[in-house]
């Protein structure tokens, strides 16, 4: 984006009217801002101008006589006289459009872009009306696949350079390029190198013609049949999207340009995830245990379809039975991070205010404690990447997990004056754009952060050499630092990460962006779907009184987290477990504990959209509404609230999560007093200390959303919000010279429920491999592709190996949730880190 370089205002005359442009602003932008639209194809506000299509030629007199100039490349200068309607301009526009159309096929009736095509629109508005071209048009094979999801029709291409610029400039994947020359110029991939970018779908969205089409949308709808609504994609970034549907089916998701978050971009995984919504394996009706004849009997082996009344009653009686037998502590709730913020509040109210249990956890052992996350001073993404600032990365690879944040980071690193210090155990997809790669050994990151903050950089700490420590300290010095923090590896406990956070809080100017997995995790932590917390970033101790007055009851003591609940289930003290869109069997780092825990529970109640492995073993299954099937509010990593809108109806009798909670409460003879997401939000705004002053109207009205807590002191009379206190530092585990320290990270395409239910993505999940530094591999006698046995103190697994220069010495990386081998078998949650030994077979 070409932002004005300074606030100086430059007078420019456009069509005889004097308007104000910002100094340095491009003429095309200044005109548009002042209500004069100049047609264009290649110009895109988020990419550098290239001046290729020549559609934006206008007659400009900048003091040396009037001439045709490309307004997309011309910065405004004082006294510029512009005529966008002169005969010369019109002739040039006519000419360029005629040139663009001579070889453009007139297959608009079968083109996906027809109806929303800038070439169509601008031909109608500015074009010559008819063609004088009588020759044969240019022909290419049409269309050709350039990646797993994107098709290219070179006949339709008008060579505007948007997709190719996106690939090289924005995504950093320069895999498509111009080839040949003259009128034979074409966009194409290089031989045997597909456009395998995580962001390829964006090129389809910005293509000004129908040259690039995406497999999931091809021939699915005509644009004029689509209904659309602006919404938020429920990922931790809170990407703004436009959801488009036809005949009650979501058919396309497009990015919406929001300055604060995604700048209009989306990752392919999010963009094409709507395929899962209409998958025929969606849960469409409640299920309960029954016999093979479909009769709902308590002791049946099968899950059989039933009515909501029966299913809710069965769930309620199980909860009542547990309450009577073992008290509220015998009931637990796992999950809820993918719910809307309203539904999270309603479930928190049901669990803590009605049932009275604090055994509630939205994270499955792969997050950070809410007492830490919600207590940290937060920054916004834009401020974190403002010129002159510094960013510390202590998270999963953003390219793999948080794509749009990766694009923002990449842009800031390329264009802006920011420094990036990477403390994560392995290098991220930012590659050489990172200022300093201080890749701390798992378990030692607290000590590394401490050394950088304290300036003790003369000796090696945690696998980081003094040179890197010094460089990291220098890169952070005298800059506003934002620490983007999450859990880079589940094979490393949260303790060392929290120690690192504690060290960074001592920096002079520091703020945080907690970047945890699962869509609305920030909302879940804010709403108290976590042990010891209540809605609005307040603790049981601090806010107990306040919420007891509002809700009637609140648990007295802090409850169990997911691991604790599963252990309690195993020892019999927890008998009823509610899974809110959670799949512990596949998603909890200790698969064995999850399976023993779920098996030991008397009743498992699952609220989900797909029959995951955990759901298949549940006793009561309640089908929930998915994305775009219900309305609400999303909370992103900044604490930014933005609206989630309903576009289609849930399948079958599936219901919104908040409604399921309300029904269940009613069956428990309690009235939550909530009738709609809006009424839930009104209660949140009225009660939650962090949400004071953020009304639903304000959230809906703000294009870029609303960051909480609001700067005013509307919540002054409410309980204090949690504050950060550094825990006792985790002890550093000595290095075992014969072992490699395990990093279990995540990749974009894995065996996750949504990915596996999207036809265009399911096959992109690769097999699990163990990566290690080539020198470590050589020392072990391991070559690329060799099958190796990886052994931890707990178990051993076999999988192929891959030497990888990006992995630091002494570490081994195995991605989670990939077919072939389950790395979770190696991990012992009770140890700070996991060391593994690798042997060839």
């Amino acid at each position: 984006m070409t932002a004005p370089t300074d606030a100086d205002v430059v007078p420019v005359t456009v069509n005889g009217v004097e308007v104000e442009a910002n100094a340095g602003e491009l003429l095309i932008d200044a005109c548009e801002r002042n209500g004069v639209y100049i047609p264009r194809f290649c110009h895109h506000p988020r990419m550098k101008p290239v001046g290729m299509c020549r559609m934006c030629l206008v007659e400009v007199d900048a003091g040396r006589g009037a001439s045709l100039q490309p307004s997309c490349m011309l910065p405004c200068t004082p006294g510029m006289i512009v005529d966008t309607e002169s005969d010369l301009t019109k002739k040039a526009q006519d000419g360029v459009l005629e040139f663009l159309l001579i070889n453009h096929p007139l297959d608009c009736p079968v083109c996906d872009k027809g109806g929303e095509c800038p070439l169509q629109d601008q031909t109608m508005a500015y074009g010559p009306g008819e063609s004088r071209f009588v020759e044969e048009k240019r022909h290419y094979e049409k269309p050709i696949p350039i990646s797993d999801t994107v098709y290219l029709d070179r006949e339709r291409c008008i060579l505007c350079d948007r997709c190719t610029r996106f690939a090289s400039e924005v995504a950093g994947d320069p895999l498509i390029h111009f080839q040949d020359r003259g009128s034979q110029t074409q966009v194409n991939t290089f031989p045997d190198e597909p456009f395998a970018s995580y962001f390829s779908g964006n090129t389809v969205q910005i293509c000004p013609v129908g040259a690039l089409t995406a497999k999931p949308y091809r021939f699915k709808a005509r644009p004029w049949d689509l209904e659309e609504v602006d919404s938020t994609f429920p990922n931790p970034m809170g990407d703004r999207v436009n959801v488009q549907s036809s005949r009650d089916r979501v058919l396309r998701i497009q990015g919406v340009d929001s300055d604060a978050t995604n700048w209009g971009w989306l990752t392919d995984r999010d963009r094409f995830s709507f395929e899962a919504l209409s998958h025929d394996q969606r849960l469409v009706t409640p299920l309960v245990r029954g016999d093979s004849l479909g009769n709902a009997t308590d002791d049946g082996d099968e899950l059989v379809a039933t009515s909501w009344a029966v299913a809710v009653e069965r769930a309620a009686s199980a909860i009542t039975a547990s309450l009577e037998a073992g008290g509220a502590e015998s009931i637990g709730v796992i999950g809820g991070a993918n719910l809307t913020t309203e539904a999270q509040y309603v479930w928190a109210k049901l669990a803590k205010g009605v049932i009275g249990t604090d055994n509630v956890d939205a994270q499955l052992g792969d997050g950070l404690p809410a007492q830490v996350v919600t207590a940290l001073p937060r920054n916004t993404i834009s401020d974190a990447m403002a010129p002159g600032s510094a960013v510390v990365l202590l998270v999963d690879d953003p390219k793999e997990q948080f794509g749009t944040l990766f694009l923002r980071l990449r842009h800031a690193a390329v264009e802006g004056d920011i420094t990036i210090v990477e403390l994560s155990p392995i290098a991220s997809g930012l590659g050489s754009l990172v200022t300093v790669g201080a890749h701390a050994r798992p378990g030692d990151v607290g000590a590394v952060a401490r050394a950088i903050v304290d300036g003790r950089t003369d000796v090696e700490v945690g696998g980081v050499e003094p040179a890197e420590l010094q460089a990291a300290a220098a890169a952070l010095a005298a800059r506003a630092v934002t620490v983007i923090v999450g859990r880079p590896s589940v094979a490393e406990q949260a303790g060392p990460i929290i120690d690192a956070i504690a060290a960074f809080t001592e920096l002079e100017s520091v703020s945080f962006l907690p970047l945890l997995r699962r869509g609305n995790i920030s909302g879940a932590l804010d709403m108290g779907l976590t042990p010891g917390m209540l809605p609005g970033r307040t603790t049981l101790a601090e806010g107990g009184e306040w919420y007891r007055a509002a809700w009637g009851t609140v648990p007295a003591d802090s409850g169990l987290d997911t691991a604790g609940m599963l252990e309690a289930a195993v020892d019999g003290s927890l008998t009823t477990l509610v899974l809110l869109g959670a799949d512990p069997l596949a998603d909890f780092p200790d698969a064995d504990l999850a399976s023993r825990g779920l098996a030991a529970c008397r009743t498992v109640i699952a609220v989900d959209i797909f029959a995951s492995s955990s759901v298949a073993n549940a006793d009561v299954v309640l089908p929930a509404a998915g994305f775009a099937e219900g309305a609400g509010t999303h909370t992103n990593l900044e604490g930014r609230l933005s609206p989630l809108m309903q576009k289609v109806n849930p399948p079958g009798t599936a219901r919104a999560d908040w409604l399921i909670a309300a029904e269940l409460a009613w069956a428990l003879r309690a009235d939550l007093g909530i009738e709609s997401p809006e009424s839930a939000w009104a209660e949140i705004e009225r009660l939650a200390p962090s949400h004071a002053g953020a009304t639903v109207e304000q959230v809906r009205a703000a294009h870029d959303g609303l960051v909480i807590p609001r700067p005013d002191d509307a919540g002054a009379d409410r309980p204090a919000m949690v504050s950060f206190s550094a825990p006792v530092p985790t002890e550093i585990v000595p290095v075992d010279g014969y072992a490699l320290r395990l990093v279990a990270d995540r990749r974009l395409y894995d065996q996750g429920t949504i990915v596996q239910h999207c036809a265009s993505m399911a096959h992109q999940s690769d097999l699990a491999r163990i990566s290690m530094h080539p020198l470590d591999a050589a020392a072990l006698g391991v070559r690329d592709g060799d099958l190796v046995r990886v052994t931890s103190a707990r178990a051993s697994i076999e999988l192929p190996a891959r030497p990888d220069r990006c992995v630091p010495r002494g570490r081994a990386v195995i991605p989670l949730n990939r077919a072939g081998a389950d790395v979770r078998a190696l991990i012992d949650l009770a140890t700070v880190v996991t060391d593994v030994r690798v042997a060839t077979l």
Partner: protein
Amino acid sequence: MGVNSYLAHAPGYVDNEGPKIVTGRFVHEDSHTLARSLATGGYDGLKRALEQSPTSIHDIVRDATLLGRGGAGFPAGVKWGFCPPGVWPRYLVVNGDESEPGTYKDRLLMQRDPHQLIEGSLIACYALGLSQCFLYVRGEMALAQERIAIALNEAYDAGLVGTNILGTDLSVDIVLHWGAGAYIVGEETALIESLEGNRGMPRLKPPFFPAAIGLYGKPTIVNNVETLANLPWIINNGAAAYKAFGSETSPGTRMFAVSGHVKRPGVYEVEHGTTTFRELLYGDNYCQGIRAGHELKMFIPGGGSAPWFFPEQLDLPLEARPVGAAGSMLGSGAIVVMDETTDAVKACLRVVRFFARESCGKCTPCREGTSWEETILQRIHDGLGRPGDIDMLLDIADNISPGPYPTAADEANGLDAVPFPPKQTTICPLGPSSVAPITSAIRRFRHEFEAKITARELIPVEATGP
């Protein structure tokens, strides 16, 4: 061998009488070797330059009014002064991507006397305080590349290039870069893109000319091969001696490549500005006239991009300004002569086809327009033209280059010449270059186009059936 003749070892070059500034060594068969170069005063200019301050060398070049030989004819000494102060490093890029149709003078300079070019480049680097020079040589010029590569190795070994040249503080590295054979890379910003490893496509200028933001975003001076080849002589003999040749505004000599229907086509070193086209084409010392029994129909005065001239313009001097005022340009000094046997439509088609093939594909009007022009011309030439085709061609041309296009005065049509250069809807002048032959040919020989269109032969259709 002798004066006024072809040299067997320098095909294409005609050794004529007259001052020799850049082709002096061509008579020697081994002129490309370091030994011959040193034996005939090679690198003396560099030694002399090193005895003076860089500023004074710059002053001499500015004083000599050495005009750029690449086509635009901009004074090299003035161009050198355009680098923004205080921005380092800076680069010198030698444009050896000579590919204008009809031009082959730089190829001869690089093949026959690579050390003169190296010496000239070193003098320029010394005057500008540069330590890095890139020699960009067109892909197809295999012999030139080979000779320059050998010459560079010889010069490095002799301490003439590299660190501490000739024992002084001057250190310059020269990198030889082989192009991939794209005409557009002769345009300086496209050349810079290509040199950076990108696809050779022109950058928009203004706002930034290469002298301000060029190679790798740094100030870059791009000079033509012949321009730099002049420097050793100028330093050796001084600006005054240089200005003794040629006219006041265009001093020195210039190489002209004459091809086509003349008795003795070839490259000539000619006094700049004082010689006329007539002298060059008809003079005994030069081309010796149109081939026997024929007469001049038209000639292209400055390479394929230039609007055509006709017999009326023969008495114009070989100088940029009067040629520009008459509606064409001297360009890179390539004169293509066509006699009355030439089919104007076919000649026009041939030149347009070149530009259609060589368009880089960046700007829509050039990418689509040039090949459209080609197909229409091909159709007319094949006898399949339509009545409106001529005006349509002119209108398409107008969409690439709006407004009146410069052409030589056509008294028959009562039109005046429009001075060069034309307006353009494209970034670089390649698109408008394709317009030059079209407007020239149609303005002058519209009847030939009309004849082809009206004389079209209908395809006989045999009636069958009842």
